């Protein structure tokens, strides 16, 4: 009875609404149109000048050198702006300004006051975070989702973290009474222009030093915008100076007699050059150099997360990461299965316009870097390793490289030894934990390493033995202002980040 009543109601309903009771069966539907939008982040937020001066003593100046160079967008090779090239006289001016600011203003200032400046800068970075992110991507080619969601939040975080140290330095290291070193000359690379700036400038200022910063020649723009921001923040003139230029400018900064402290992040080759330039001086030096990170996957690893970790480990920022997990060691028992998973995942990576929010792999930073990657990948193939690249289209203009895996790699291959600094992963296998450690440590570098296993005791056993300044277990490429970063062996010395990062910018009295 109830059933009949139900039927009647249904019919009435349908009749009343005058609807044909039809349903298109799902199986007859065309395959779903499912495309990710070319969802370009607007670049309107950034206003670029045609040319930029040097930031010395609180103002933008034309260079005495009268030289300039252009910076291009590696995503399409468009020229973005003309940038001044600082010559020795300009560097000299910058160092003098920094010295004067150190002697007269920043050095004598109380830690609490310094802290407030740095806090203010941190806040201003947050306010203009999108603008800085867009500019970072324009100038450097990294995907906007990374500059927006990773780089800039970390940049603000670093300033916020070190701001709080400025008036607490007495508590940082037991038994010593800290004092600043003086003028810090800092040379930073193009892979994380703003983040490396933050890693260097924030602790230097917090510890009471003044700064002459030399950004990389292919990515000078965010440092200049940052300089402008510190000007707006009212940071006293000379506390931060930005001198743009290439290697020569960098050399002039680090070898300047009145620089007390040198901090460099970049290639091991240039790091060695700086170390030799400083021989015979007692300048304090920290170096954060190259790497060839080992990523070790055990059979019992959480495999799907390990795949993500490996992908993130090598393709984050196009592989332009000193701590990239560029050597993958997979336990033989799961090697083929794991490589299959990796290949399938590679097929879903989107390579292209870095300003597109859906882009996973953006532009290679420069033509030079692209050439270097090509050379090493060619070497990998001629040495007999097997290459895998997904079949994705690359933009016509700009510098791009497909995400690349090499299987059948031996320790003796160049691609297992040399830092490629690009989206290229070399896959090797191992059988026992001892073998994994031996192979992982078999490199002149020692910056990062990864371990994937669910066995806790094995993680700790491995972590003890891996010669690397950062060991990520069941994760990879994580950074935090509180967490020290830096390498063993030829990956450099000194730590940046965390409490340890302060020590590189402090002198002290003991007792």
């Amino acid at each position, binding site marked *: 009875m109830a059933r009949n009543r139900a039927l009647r109601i249904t019919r009435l*309903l349908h009749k009343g609404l005058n609807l044909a009771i039809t349903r298109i069966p799902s199986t007859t539907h065309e395959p779903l149109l499912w495309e990710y*939008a070319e969802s370009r982040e607007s670049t309107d937020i950034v206003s670029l000048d045609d040319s930029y001066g040097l930031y010395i003593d609180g103002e933008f100046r034309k260079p005495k050198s009268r030289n300039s160079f252009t910076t291009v967008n590696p995503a399409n090779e468009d020229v973005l702006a003309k940038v001044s090239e600082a010559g020795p006289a300009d560097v000299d001016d910058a160092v003098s300004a920094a010295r004067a600011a150190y002697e007269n203003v920043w050095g004598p200032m109380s830690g609490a006051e310094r802290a407030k400046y740095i806090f203010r800068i941190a806040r201003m970075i947050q306010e203009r975070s999108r603008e800085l992110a867009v500019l970072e991507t324009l100038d450097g080619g990294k995907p906007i989702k990374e500059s927006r969601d990773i780089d800039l939040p970390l940049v603000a975080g670093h300033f916020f973290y070190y701001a709080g140290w400025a008036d607490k330095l007495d508590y940082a290291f037991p038994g010593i009474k800290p004092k600043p070193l003086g003028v810090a000359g800092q040379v930073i690379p193009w892979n994380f222009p703003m983040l490396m700036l933050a890693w260097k400038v924030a602790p230097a200022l917090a510890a009471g030093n003044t700064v002459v910063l030399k950004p990389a020649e292919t990515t000078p723009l965010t440092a200049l915008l940052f300089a402008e921001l510190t000007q707006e923040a009212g940071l006293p003139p000379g506390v931060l100076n930005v001198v743009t230029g290439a290697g020569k400018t960098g050399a002039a900064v680090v070898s300047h007699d009145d620089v007390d402290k040198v901090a460099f992040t970049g290639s091991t080759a240039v790091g060695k050059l700086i170390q030799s330039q400083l021989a015979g001086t007692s300048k304090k030096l920290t170096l954060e150099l190259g790497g060839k990170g080992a990523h070790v996957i055990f059979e019992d690893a959480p495999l799907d997360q390990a795949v993500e970790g490996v992908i993130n480990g090598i393709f984050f920022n196009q592989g332009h990461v000193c701590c990239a997990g560029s050597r993958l060691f997979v336990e033989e028992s799961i090697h083929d299965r794991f490589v299959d998973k990796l290949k399938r995942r590679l097929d879903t990576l989107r390579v292209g316009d870095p300003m597109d929010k859906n882009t996973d792999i953006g532009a290679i930073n420069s033509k030079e870097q692209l050439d270097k990657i090509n050379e090493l990948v060619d070497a990998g193939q001629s040495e007999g390793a097997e290459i895998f690249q997904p079949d994705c289209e690359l933009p016509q203009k700009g510098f791009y490289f497909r995400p690349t895996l090499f299987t059948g790699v031996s320790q003796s291959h160049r691609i297992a030894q040399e830092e490629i600094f690009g989206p290229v992963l070399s896959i090797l296998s191992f059988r026992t934990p001892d073998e994994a450690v031996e192979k992982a440590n078999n490199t002149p570098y020692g910056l990062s390493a990864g371990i994937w296993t669910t066995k806790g005791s094995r993680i700790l056993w491995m972590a003890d033995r891996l010669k690397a300044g950062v060991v990520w277990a069941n994760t990879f490429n994580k950074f935090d202002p509180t967490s020290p970063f830096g390498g063993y062996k030829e990956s450099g010395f000194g730590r940046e980040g965390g409490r340890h990062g302060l020590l590189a910018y402090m002198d002290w009295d003991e007792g």
Partner: protein
Amino acid sequence: MTLAPARTSILPDRITTPTLRTFIRGVTSVDEVGAAERVAALSKRSIKRESKRAALDLIIRMMDLTTLEGKDTPGKVIQLSAKAVRPDPTDPTIPSVAAVCVYPAMVPYVVQATEGTGIHVASVATYFPSGQVDTKLKVQETRDVVAAGADEVDMVIDRGAFLSGEYFKVFDEVRRTKEAAGDAHLKVILETGELETLDNVRRASMLAMAAGADFIKTSTGKVSPAAKLDVTLVMLEAIRDFHDATGVKVGMKPAGGVRTSKDAMKYLLVLNETLGEGWMTPDWFRFGASSLLNDVLMQIRWLETGRYASPDYFTKD
């Protein structure tokens, strides 16, 4: 009953509690933080405007429009069925949903109300939501709902048995329910909110699929949390690995807690990135939902008119 050979290919030769325990312990572990990071990253993708409309249609076509309340009446389910057939009376381009999902007693009304529409009739069974009765009763209830006209059966696993390591009991109930369901599609609810860990989710997924599940489903909707994105990711990855190992394709149904188009879109993003196009149809993916439908309709209206919509213009059934 015997399972298809493909399914048994990953199982031990003799299926007993100890051998299943070994099987379950061999299931790859899951790192919770890594899974959360992955879904967070995927959630940030955006799709084309044209794709968006197709995706919203797809969400409707994937929907198991559901009412599972003690106060359900024939009137309620009949009205819901009408909505299922024609979600937006003013817009004939809106497709029907995939199925109407109800308690066993309501099945006949749905059958009548959707007759000839091709909409599937889904019934919960096995003493949903707790499943805390004798297996015999569960099997009988399954037979009854199929006899009443349900062509899809949403069963619950015995979470107590699962958590206490009685894997054979869980396995056996799924297997016997599948047998009782006959040609009806069997969706196996893991009730992931009670399993708590992603390791358990993955293990239960494997167990259910090996035992014959056509679909695996997150939740009853009676336990909080219900469907979650990271849980869904882990289940989809289990489906992928099961497919790799056996060649058998299994469907997925997140249920409960998916209330907005934006949320549903994230599930589709995760689905597309994890399993790809082959699973992007109502045959292989369903949403168990009730309030989601109107939100999707409102989104479609916004896409078409450029004006944000008001709930007053959409029927509540």
